């Protein structure tokens, strides 16, 4: 098998994004759902992994439930020639859970680097932001922290392949 068949891959991606069945032979259980062998499921996962499409594969925890109640989206206006350096610097801290470059939309929106920071409370998040600013040399860089309020809709971080619908990969786009 040199290339994964699209239907097989789609079914596999859907099964993986929903989560493994919590049974002794989870890959076998997925294989039964899809209608193929356990070995093919494992090989398929390895291929998707090798292609670089899986960020990680394991236990996905809900931070809120574990006492990390505050979630701040921190936005920075980084000079264009420093974005890569700064992005790499931020991306390596364990309390940073996302770090994306996005376009500025002047004059409404001057920020071009976004990172997500989880903390036990707002104060904790602010401390982490201060720490990152020091570590990455960003004390003089304009920034803002947007704390989250009500959640109006959340459709889980998994691919939805049931309709003609969009297949989503990240809750943060």
């Amino acid at each position, binding site marked *: 098998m040199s290339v994964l068949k699209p239907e097989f891959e789609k079914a596999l991606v859907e099964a993986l994004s*929903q989560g493994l069945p919590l049974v002794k032979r989870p890959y076998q259980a997925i294989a039964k759902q899809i209608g193929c062998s356990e070995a093919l499921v494992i090989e398929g996962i390895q291929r998707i992994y090798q292609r670089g499409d899986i960020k990680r*594969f394991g236990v996905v925890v809900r931070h809120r439930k574990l006492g990390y109640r505050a979630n701040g989206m921190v936005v920075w206006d980084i000079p264009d020639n420093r974005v890569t350096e700064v992005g790499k610097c931020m991306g390596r801290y364990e309390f940073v*859970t996302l770090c994306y470059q996005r376009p500025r939309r002047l004059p409404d929106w001057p920020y071009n680097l976004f990172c997500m920071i989880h903390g036990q409370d707002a104060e904790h998040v602010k401390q982490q932001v201060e720490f990152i600013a020091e570590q990455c040399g960003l004390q003089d860089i304009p920034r803002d922290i947007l704390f989250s309020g009500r959640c109006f809709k959340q459709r889980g971080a998994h691919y939805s392949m049931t309709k003609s619908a969009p297949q989503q990969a990240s809750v*943060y786009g």
Partner: protein
Amino acid sequence: MRQYSALEQRLLNDFQHELPLSPTPFADIAKSLGVYENTVLENFRRLQSEGVISRVGAVFKPNRIGASTLAAMAVDEDDLEDIAAIVSEFAEVNHNYERFHHFNLWFVVVANDQQSLQNTLDTIEVSCGYKVLDLPMLKDYFIDLGFQLQWT
């Protein structure tokens, strides 16, 4: 927040990436922790039913399939719930939430391609009567190694 046992803490913290790809991944985990396979499974099932774990599975890279963006609107505070409800109606919107800022409504829009993404954003703008800020991801700097939990 309840107290988590030493085993639960390790199950939550130590297996956020590189789940074994052997036929019996939970037995492998059990072996590495010196406990029974059934104990591992029972703990994971309980943590999942409590909602502490959303799943044991894969986190995919964003933007691999289809087109997506993060969008924001600066909505009058009094209108926020009504406007949020309109935005949530769109099937292409999969996450829609408030943030405390002048731009107070943030949502993720996902579509099959760039053109239908743009159409959706235009329709949302017209339906809501507010300008939409379109902030697609340009580059991802984050290497997801899971989330180091601090048990204090």
